[in-house]
């Protein structure tokens, strides 16, 4: 298990905490928290695929989202679709045809920004599993309150006074938008401003990923006899 914590700064994201390899049976797993929002993700793959899901030229990616209580509802299905589409684009699916890659997300606590937290946790679990990816993804949420202020990564208390909430997912190479989910009403200017703020916030998440991987390999590096340069 590898732990990592980042403290938050002004006008920035909530403190992030992560533990990799928490589950023993899955090929990759991560427990990720942003503030008080916590999510556990498991990745299985490339594994055997059911005949109805088989694709001859690429891996079949599926995402499952489980809420903390009750059965999955419509908005959970929406989250599954977003996570699946984001991860299908990020993974090198053509490298593993006729296999399946499953990403299972379990909500542990929702304190605002759950969709963003779920996408980031899925990315960390994919990093842990070692499946080939073209780039990494990071999701940042923000909200617009009744005074037209834009707040990055709000918690559930702040979200109570919001008139719109937006979640953006960026890729790690060019920081293009990979996915976007919004609720509420906002003007185009507010959208563009939020996008800019979220894009800056995503830098923190990508450097967090790098730090985590550095810590994982530092622990093993000193002892691994495969060092050769």
């Amino acid at each position, binding site marked *: 298990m590898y732990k990592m914590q980042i403290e938050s700064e002004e006008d920035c994201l909530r403190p992030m905490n992560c533990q990799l390899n928490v589950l023993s049976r899955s090929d990759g797993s991560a427990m990720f928290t942003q503030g008080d929002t916590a999510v556990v993700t498991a990745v299985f793959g490339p594994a055997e695929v059911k005949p109805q899901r088989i694709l001859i030229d690429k891996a079949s990616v599926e995402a499952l989202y489980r809420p903390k209580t009750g059965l999955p509802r419509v908005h959970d299905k929406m989250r599954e679709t977003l996570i699946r589409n984001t991860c299908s684009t990020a993974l090198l699916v053509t490298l593993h045809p006729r296999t399946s890659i499953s990403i299972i997300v379990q909500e542990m606590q929702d304190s605002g920004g759950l969709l963003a937290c779920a996408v980031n946790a899925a990315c960390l679990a994919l990093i842990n599993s070692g499946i*080939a990816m073209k780039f990494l993804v990071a999701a940042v949420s923000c909200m617009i309150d009744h005074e037209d202020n834009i707040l990055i990564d709000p918690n559930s208390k702040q979200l109570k006074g919001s008139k719109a909430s937006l979640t953006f997912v960026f890729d790690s190479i060019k920081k293009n938008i990979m996915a976007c989910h919004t609720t509420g009403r906002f003007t185009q200017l507010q959208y563009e401003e939020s996008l800019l703020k979220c894009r800056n916030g995503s830098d923190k998440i990508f450097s967090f990923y790098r730090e985590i991987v550095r810590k994982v390999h530092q622990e093993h590096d000193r002892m691994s*006899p495969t060092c050769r*340069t």
Partner: protein
Amino acid sequence: MEVNVGDVVLPGDVIQAPNTNDKGKLILGPGLCRHMDEVLITTSGVLRKKGRNVYWVDSHRKRYVPVKGDTVVGVVVNRSGDTFKVDIGSSEQASLSYLAFEGATKKNRPDVQIGDIVFAKLLEASRDLEPELVCVDSYGKKGKLGVLPEGGFIFTCSLNLIRKILNPKCQMLKILGSEIPYDIAVGMNGKLWLKTKSIKETIAIVNAILTAEHLQHHEIASLCDDVINALKGM
């Protein structure tokens, strides 16, 4: 982001000015992929280099993806006509022809049952084809390959631990072997087969190997000593 050898890398990073040999050839190992004119990194880990132009990424994985030429430990799960289906822990079961054993002919079939453990070599493994195993080398000799004897114990571990204990620098198997007689078959698919004289010794060696994943060199040597002393004390 541009990275150099020895850096921690993430998918999406690009190698900065890789060296090629005199003919302009560059050899890309696991974790690297060619994208137009650049070398793209596809798994997270540490970038390594050997010689002048061989690059790869040292990463941590549990799930095995078949690679041509690897020796693996598998379990025979099915028999369809002239081939056996062997589970090697990958997405697809591998096929093993009954003629791929030493001295096997159509009249003289090898004695392989469902549930047997085999130590085989991957003859063919590409993403589009079913993996194919053989229990004989290109001279027709079996060497160390073939059906493993009964009475052993199979366990799985991560692929980086396998590479670690197989590395000539790692003394673990030697130190354990100097005091405890054992038979081991290490499969590159993360499966190990172990046979010793008693259950206690088997459990001791399994625990020693699994614990070694998080230890340094000198710690591994002292771990082995501890295990051997504990066994002698019993």
